[in-house]
């Protein structure tokens, strides 16, 4: 199966906004076994100058899930998910994510190419706050391994 190159540039807006909650930040911080008080305790976060607890730097991978799932599940794009491994990942922040943020996200297909029998699919998710402020851009490259 080959990825359809016509899908370069296609956009997948998340159907719903993402609400960053203290509970979800705590769950994620516990899952990565990183109990930094800036993630868990509002007073500690405020002492660092943040309005509330902040999310760990890799937390925004969650923001890309909705749009990426739509892209990967799109039958016309032609991704065989059983052969997908994660190739690379990047985050570029305008500011940290805070508990209480309500973020809208759009995932775009920014790269499709073949390399050594594999196919590489790059998805970029941009997250903006309710007032339109850019918060973070997450870029993910997936490798669809050739059989």
């Amino acid at each position, binding site marked *: 199966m080959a990825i359809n190159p016509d899908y370069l540039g296609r956009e997948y807006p998340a159907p719903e906004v993402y609400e960053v909650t203290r509970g979800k930040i705590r*769950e*994620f911080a*516990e*899952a*990565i*076994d*990183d109990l*930094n*008080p*800036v*993630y868990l305790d509002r007073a*500690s976060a405020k002492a*660092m*100058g*943040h309005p509330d607890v*902040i999310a*760990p*730097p*890799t937390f925004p*991978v*969650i923001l890309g*899930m909705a749009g990426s799932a739509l892209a990967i599940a799109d039958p016309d794009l032609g991704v065989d*998910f*059983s*052969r*997908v*491994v*994660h*190739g*690379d*990942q*990047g*985050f*570029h*922040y305008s*500011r*940290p994510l805070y508990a209480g943020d309500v973020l809208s996200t759009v995932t775009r297909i920014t790269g499709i190419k073949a390399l050594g029998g594999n196919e590489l699919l790059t998805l970029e998710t941009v997250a903006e706050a309710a007032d339109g402020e850019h918060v973070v851009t997450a*870029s993910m490259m997936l490798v669809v*391994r050739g059989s």
Partner: protein
Amino acid sequence: MSRLKYDDVETGATIPERTFPVRRLDLVRYAGASGDFNPIHWNERFAKSVGLPDVIAHGMFTMAEAGRLITDWTGDPGSVVDYSVRFSAPVVVPDDDQGAEITVGGKVKSKNDDGTVTVMLTARSAGAKVLAKASAVVRLA
């Protein structure tokens, strides 16, 4: 926790290595928290059927552990303005109580004119280099 200051950082300085455990339970917990339920991260039968040696860790779990080296070093996770990695080899996690280990290290690559600092990271597991081109840019006071 005290915050690292720009003036206290020297180009070429190393951040001491740390080792983080990865067991099957960690992967199950991470799958739930992140929403990434790809069976290659918890189902040995499935992982082997698609040609992997065994269950492998989420790349994002490794990226998160490597990130701790940076956020604990700066003292404020909010200092991170850029963080990117390439997953160059899988972290293979056997079905036993020890699991695998990821050893992470860092080095200051540059102090930038805009008050940021660029750090290069390394990560190894079972002798394999599991992250490549791993770098973070942090903004320090």
